[in-house]
């Protein structure tokens, strides 16, 4: 059966698809915000990051596909670490979870990257945390900087990228022993020097499964694409159309020239463009964009789509919105069906195949 795991402000909702219909199968952690969900392709473990309003950030792991869960003590910043001078570093949010080689990595606010190993130990990635620029990272929407993207080279797990709001994109080629910023070509219109190497605000970075050298980035200041593994970024926002500001981006599994974004009105407004929900697709590497609206609300729509709320699997796409709508397409976005209009605010959407 195909599943859609939807992390929301009020729990982790697992939808299943049978006879071409989605239905809610199970609610986990009812009432608790779920900031991230990850199904480990190696172990089969499910991970859910919880953001309790009262009790702090917690991690839950399931070894039976969500039938039961166990709490795993969340990563802790080492004693004495500081976000900046005089401000203690404490775990505020888990924003990214990804398998990297033989470890699971966690991207967090305030900017620490933790690995989790087979001995059940979390380790703060020191080379990244100790970068001289790190104390100059800053929050974009959140109080402090956070790591929301972890992008792994499928042919070499020592080579992976992280993206930080706000700092930019960083690459390691040696399993996290050293990090190099990869922000050439980006423009941060909110900085005195928009081309600054540090201080960019990628909202999400994904790689093309068809060609890892091709990276897509929905940035605070538009849409970017790199065809040389992040060495250079090209600005590919639509000149006179909606494809520009947004959070989420999804890359085609088979075509490195194809990707989708879900636009919103710029940063100080943050609603659907013209009150109409629209997904935009490019099939030519960002030279042109096609608006996909069939089946999506075209009046009185205030929804936007957060960065982890848009997933793709083959021909199928799904996204969840800030006002609790969940949409699904089985034909690359040409037509959309409504799965639900009554969810809490959505923080993460992931497809899963149960074989």
């Amino acid at each position, binding site marked *: 059966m195909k599943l859609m795991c939807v992390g929301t402000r009020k729990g982790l909702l697992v939808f299943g698809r049978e006879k071409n219909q989605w239905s809610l199968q199970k609610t986990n952690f009812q009432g608790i915000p779920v900031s991230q969900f990850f199904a480990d392709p190696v172990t089969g473990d499910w991970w859910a990051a919880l953001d*309790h*309003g*009262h*009790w*702090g950030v917690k991690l839950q792991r399931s070894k039976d596909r969500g039938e039961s869960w166990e*709490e795993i*003590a*969340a990563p*802790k*910043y080492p*004693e004495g670490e500081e976000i900046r001078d005089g401000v*203690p*570093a*404490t*775990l505020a949010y888990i924003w990214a979870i990804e398998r990297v080689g033989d470890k699971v990595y966690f991207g967090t606010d305030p900017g620490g990257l933790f690995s989790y190993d087979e001995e059940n130990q979390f380790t703060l990635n020191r080379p990244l945390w100790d970068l001289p620029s790190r104390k100059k990272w800053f929050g974009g929407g959140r109080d402090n900087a956070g790591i929301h993207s972890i992008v792994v080279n499928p042919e070499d797990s020592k080579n992976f990228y992280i993206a930080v709001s706000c700092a930019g994109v960083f690459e390691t080629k040696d399993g996290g022993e050293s990090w190099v910023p990869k922000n050439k070509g980006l423009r941060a219109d909110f900085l005195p020097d928009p081309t600054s190497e540090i201080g960019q605000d990628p909202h999400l970075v994904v790689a093309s499964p068809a060609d890892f050298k091709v990276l897509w980035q929905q940035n605070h200041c538009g849409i970017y694409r790199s065809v040389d593994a992040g060495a250079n970024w090209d600005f590919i926002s639509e000149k006179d159309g909606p494809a520009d500001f947004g959070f989420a981006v999804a890359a085609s599994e088979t075509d490195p020239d194809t990707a989708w974004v879900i636009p919103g009105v710029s940063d100080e407004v943050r609603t659907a463009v013209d009150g109409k929900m629209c997904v935009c697709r490019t099939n030519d590497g960002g030279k042109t964009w096609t608006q996909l609206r069939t089946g999506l609300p075209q009046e009185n729509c205030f929804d936007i789509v957060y960065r982890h709320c848009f997933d793709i699997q083959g021909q199928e796409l799904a996204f969840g919105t800030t006002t609790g709508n969940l949409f699904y397409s089985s034909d690359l976005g040409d037509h959309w069906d409504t799965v639900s209009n009554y969810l809490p605010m959505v923080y993460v959407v992931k497809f899963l195949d149960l074989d």
Partner: protein
Amino acid sequence: MVEVNFATALSRFYPSLKPESIEANTVKELVAKLDGLYDNLSQYIVDDAGQLRKHVNIFVNNEMISDRKGLTDVLSHSDKVYFMQALSGG
């Protein structure tokens, strides 16, 4: 020994949670001893830096503790300590 009581909401995560009597001279010492009774319970009360979480309160008898950062408030024999959630959320 001080008498320790917990917010009912914590029972969701610690079903066996019950009032306890614990030997402690300060609130900080008391919080540290909670993990010996309930795994990682202290992390629900304080953050990585040991500061009281923003939406958690600790009362000693009827008074809210004064040092939310260092938890240096002194405890006396037979004090009643309450770990409470703040009224917040939505």
